[in-house]
């Protein structure tokens, strides 16, 4: 009986893994098919109505990086009279508030909201909600303090709102401090796969492009009607993605709207960041899975994609689980289909397609970006893959324990930004030295 259960579990898990791998493959082919087409330019003069845009920048102790972002905000090509830039200083204890104030004095479009210790430090969602209460624009965009956008990013992001069915937009994130070390280089490769292929394919195939929490935004009315960001969620961005879809709107991804981020620079910081993402994503899966499956606002293909997207952080746990059960299954008495030859056959196909899938996705993304040297590191992504197995397993176990024990599951752990990315910006001499 035990062997039969193990066999069934093993088959289900292998089937799930193969389904994800086929998905990677379809996404890559979809982007390849699209790569020869000409891109549409975001020309503001062609628009009937130039939307007013508010940019929210939540910041807690970001003095090392906030200066370069605000400097960039002053260089944006979008008409300044249609732009409101709101820095939410989340009770910072360093010079973040003073830097923002200094920019605000010099540039009328920049405003600063200072939160007291009593109000602030409750996470990014809380800071964003505080800002949402006072935004004036028809569109609200969000940028993290360590980001550095291209100058016409607002034009690029806002052009998708010409379609009334679109409720939100997501731009592309690329790594600014990529040459720093092996961690930043691998994160850069993950970003290439995630945005250049995954997000773009989901947009191209009209599936569910995901709002990533930054370099993106919403129709202000829609966001307010949804109640803003859910402060009880660790992955408030994924949560909002599904709330937008459930309310009947779509999200578009704009690959032409690029923004640089300062990636984590150590394996420890990588662990903390991915743990938060994994746990938050799993939290969203429990919250939205059944609503998504029965929603009439989603087409069948969107529901299928939502199923994959919501469960993506469970996959490393499933891989570990399938490894564990394959050993007793093999040693206790392999069933006919699991004799060495056929098992190796099944596993070989899986390993071939399986190992190949995420890697070819990243490889093709790097190729399309013209990143020839980046190809050479694709094989090393296996270390990041292996590292994600304990991260996601711990996230699931901790989430389970917090549910059982009834503890609050939101434990915001801020990513520290060193400001090393400043040295990769050509106009760094324009950023005042003290920042």
């Amino acid at each position, binding site marked *: 009986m035990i062997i039969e259960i193990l066999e069934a579990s093993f088959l289900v898990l292998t089937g799930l893994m193969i389904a994800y791998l086929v998905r990677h493959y379809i996404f890559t082919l979809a982007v390849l098919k699209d790569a020869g087409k000409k891109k549409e330019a975001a020309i503001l003069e062609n628009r009937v109505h130039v939307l007013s845009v508010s940019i929210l920048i939540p910041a807690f102790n970001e003095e090392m990086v906030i200066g370069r972002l605000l400097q960039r905000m002053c260089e944006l090509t979008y008409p300044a009279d249609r732009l409101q830039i709101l820095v939410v200083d989340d009770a910072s204890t360093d010079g973040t508030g003073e830097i923002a104030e200094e920019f605000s004095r010099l540039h009328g479009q920049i405003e600063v909201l200072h939160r007291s210790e009593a109000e602030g430090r409750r996470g990014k969602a809380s800071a964003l909600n505080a800002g949402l209460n006072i935004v004036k624009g028809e569109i609200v965009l969000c940028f993290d303090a360590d980001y550095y956008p*291209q100058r016409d990013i607002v034009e690029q992001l806002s052009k998708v709102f010409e379609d009334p069915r679109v409720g939100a937009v997501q731009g592309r994130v690329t790594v600014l401090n990529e040459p720093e070390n092996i961690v930043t280089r691998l994160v850069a490769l993950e970003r290439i796969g995630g945005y250049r292929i995954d997000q773009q394919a989901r947009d191209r195939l009209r599936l569910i492009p995901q709002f990533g929490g930054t370099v993106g935004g919403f129709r202000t009315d829609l966001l307010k009607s949804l109640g803003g960001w859910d402060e009880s969620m660790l992955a408030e961005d994924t949560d909002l993605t599904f709330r937008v879809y459930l309310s009947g709107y779509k999200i578009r991804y704009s690959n032409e709207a690029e923004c640089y981020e300062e990636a984590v620079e150590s394996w420890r910081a990588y662990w903390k960041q991915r743990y938060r993402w994994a746990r938050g994503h799993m939290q969203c899966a429990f919250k939205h899975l059944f609503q998504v499956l029965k929603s009439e606002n989603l087409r069948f293909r969107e529901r299928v994609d939502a199923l994959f997207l919501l469960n993506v952080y469970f996959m490393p746990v499933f891989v570990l689980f399938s490894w564990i059960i394959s050993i007793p299954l093999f040693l206790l008495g392999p069933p006919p289909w699991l004799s060495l030859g056929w098992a190796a056959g099944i596993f070989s196909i899986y390993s071939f397609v399986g190992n190949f899938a995420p890697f070819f996705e990243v490889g093709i993304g790097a190729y399309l970006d013209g990143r020839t040297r980046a190809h050479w590191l694709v094989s090393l992504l296996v270390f990041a893959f292996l590292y994600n197995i304990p991260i996601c397993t711990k996230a699931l176990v901790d989430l389970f324990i917090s549910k059982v024990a009834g503890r609050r599951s939101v434990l915001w752990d801020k990513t520290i930004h060193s400001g090393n990315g400043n040295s990769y910006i050509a106009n760094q001499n324009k950023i005042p030295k003290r920042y």
Partner: protein
Amino acid sequence: MSEKRREKGDRVGVLAYKPIAMGDRKLELRSSHIVLGFSAAAVFSCAILFSHYVSVESVFMLIAFNFLFVSLTFPLNGSLAAKVLLLSAGNIIGVLWVFLSSMFVHAVADYFGAAFNALYLILGPFVNLVWIVTFFSLSLTVLASAKNRDRD
């Protein structure tokens, strides 16, 4: 800051002012390449299928490799000759790899018994990854370089 880093920094900074910062390689999709690629893959797959030197599981692997490789690299820029050459090299390396690794697995399994087979079940995919992904990234580099030569 090292020279290399300065160079990279300048590149990123300058590109950050452009609408498409990371560059955007345009593909000239040639259906003839894809059709010929799949034909070549079918020939290689049949040759492997009817050979007596490769085990059943390795046959599956190499057939999967052929069709995945063609579908992903033949739509890219570059000459047909380069692509067919890469496909042939992939098949030769693949056959050699599975031949050597199967001999290794049999030898070690004889010595350690069934426990090693179970271990190999888990390690196998990672061992295969060494040549598959490396060969794939090498092929992309070759094709990207070929494109640059064409442009120059």
